[in-house]
């Protein structure tokens, strides 16, 4: 089996792949890197085709064409807001493919596989099919076909543990059996894993989706690597391992950005905190309640019922603030994406620049439904990406900024994350919008965000609330600035 030429070729392919990934520093280079990585995989495939005599080409070629055309068509047509769900679907497809390959190999190799390969194989089956079912649930949630909020079954943890035990026992039983019992236990293992993927994913929702998506991404890489062990292909192991590791590192990056640990995201420890948040609203100090009322007044000034005093129309107020401002930091959130308002935000940003203002965008690490999603949505709206700034860079600049314009973001600017304890967002680093001289918030409503924690920023005396459809509000704002 030692074939030095082959080994060198494989090593070369891996180096090309790593070179491709290493280009991800700027968007332009990243595009080049993506093509390089695609080239590396093309070479890997060519190497395999060249080395092995393939039969059944009458089946292989048509199915490969079908997969290619489908993949390409969907990728060309999907809208950017649905990228996370497409990634989840692709991920699920990869996981299922790895599962099928491992399954065929294990069934065919019955009785001839070394114990170590069997263990890797069982593990690969479980990871592959659980990645598939977990990704399908995630895609359903992201596409709004399944309820987006976490679904907690009665005794959720116990069910998950029972399934894990079932998987383990099936693997042990398969390991000591042969013939048709071998097949039956492999099927049991697969069924338990399929269910485990669903039970695992369904408990995660909303703000934790970025973590789930990158974790599943890691899973499909691991499934591919394990599949490589079973069929004895080093390239598959190396590429799969790279994906598994990079997915896992991104998962950690996401968790750190939210100040959560992986375990609490996946075991739903946060959910235990959630109920304590609701009473927190009613136990506000009296002063805060008054502030809240005041904020509500200015926010809902368009309601004629409140026209008693000299309540200024918040639109007029916001227009005045923005017109006077020298510097503006725009904070987009997922609400902007839901309202399809990204083009309007970017248009307003450009308009402000033409008026001679310094305009920057601040993007929180977990804004959107997958890491970096907001950047892509803004890029689609043709923002100048050199104006997008990460949290650590932009936070010190808020204090010297005239206006922070929040569009459809809530939890990521909520000072309660730093000020209160025992809430789902406690300890999460936030964008310090409140430090700007003025804050203009364009949001559908002034209700708490996904986390359920009331946003204390909304009650600040220097905050102007423009409630309603973000697209409409942005248009009005642009018009009144003319």
């Amino acid at each position, binding site marked *: 089996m030692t074939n030095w030429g082959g080994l060198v070729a494989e090593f070369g392919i891996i180096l090309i*792949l790593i070179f491709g990934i290493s280009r991800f520093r700027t968007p332009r280079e*990243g595009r080049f*890197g993506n093509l390089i990585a695609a080239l590396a995989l093309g070479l890997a495939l060519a190497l395999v085709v060249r080395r092995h005599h393939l039969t059944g080409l009458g089946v292989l070629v048509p199915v490969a064409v079908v*997969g290619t055309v*489908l993949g390409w068509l969907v990728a060309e047509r999907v809208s950017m807001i649905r990228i996370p769900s497409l990634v989840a679907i*692709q991920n699920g497809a990869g996981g*299922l493919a790895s599962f099928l390959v491992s399954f065929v190999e294990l069934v065919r190799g019955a009785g001839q596989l070394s114990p170590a390969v069997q263990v890797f194989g069982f593990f690969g089956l479980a990871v592959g099919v659980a990645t598939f079912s977990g990704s399908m649930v995630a895609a359903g949630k992201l596409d709004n076909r399944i309820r987006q909020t976490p679904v907690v079954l009665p005794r959720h943890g116990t069910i998950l543990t029972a399934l894990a035990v079932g998987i383990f026992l099936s693997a042990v039983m398969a390991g000591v059996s042969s013939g048709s019992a071998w097949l039956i236990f492999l099927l049991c293992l697969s069924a338990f894993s399929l269910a485990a993927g669903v039970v695992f994913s369904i408990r995660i929702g909303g703000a934790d989706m970025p973590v789930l998506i990158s974790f599943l991404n890691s899973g499909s890489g691991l499934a*591919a690597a394990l599949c490589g062990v079973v069929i004895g292909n080093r390239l598959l192991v190396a590429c799969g391992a790279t994906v598994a590791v990079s997915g896992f590192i991104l998962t950690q990056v996401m968790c750190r950005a939210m100040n959560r640990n992986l375990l609490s995201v996946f075991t739903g420890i946060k959910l235990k905190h959630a109920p304590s948040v609701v009473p927190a609203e009613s136990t506000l100090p009296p002063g805060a309640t008054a502030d809240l009322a005041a904020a509500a007044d200015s926010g809902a000034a368009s309601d004629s019922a409140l026209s008693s005093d000299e309540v200024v129309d918040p639109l007029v107020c916001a227009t005045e603030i923005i017109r006077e401002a020298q510097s503006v930091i725009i904070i987009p959130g997922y609400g902007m994406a839901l309202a399809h308002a990204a083009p309007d935000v970017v248009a307003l940003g450009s308009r402000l620049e033409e008026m001679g203002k310094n305009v920057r965008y601040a993007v929180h690490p977990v804004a959107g439904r997958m*890491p970096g999603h907001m950047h892509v949505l803004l890029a689609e709206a043709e923002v100048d990406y*050199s104006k997008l700034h990460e949290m650590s860079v932009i936070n010190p600049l808020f204090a010297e900024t005239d206006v922070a314009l929040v569009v459809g973001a809530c939890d990521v600017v909520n000072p309660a994350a730093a000020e209160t304890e025992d809430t789902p967002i406690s300890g999460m680093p936030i964008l310090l919008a409140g430090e700007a001289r003025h804050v203009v918030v364009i949001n559908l409503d002034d209700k708490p965000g996904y986390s359920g924690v009331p946003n204390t920023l909304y009650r600040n005396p220097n905050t102007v609330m423009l409630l309603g459809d973000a697209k409409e509000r942005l248009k009005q704002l642009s018009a009144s600035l003319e």
Partner: protein
Amino acid sequence: MMDIVLVVLVFVVASVAGYLLISRVPQQLHTPLMSMTNAISGVTIIGAVLLFSLDGDVFSLVLGGAAVVLAAFNLVGGFAITNRMLAMFRTKDRDAG
């Protein structure tokens, strides 16, 4: 069959390389990066194609065929969408394309 030591070694090397590479990717490229690594996990198409190098019984051909469709969907779709996304990133002075 493959040496288990080799597998472990590959994982260790991939972990180190992955850590060095991924931790330096700017946040704005996280979605394209994930979408590309997702495409790379379509490498399992190698395994699917290899199922066609054996004496083709119906069982292997059917499941292998399904695996090829799925892996190709993952692989091609992943690279295509990554390319499309990155092409959208522009600055005022120069286009990213």
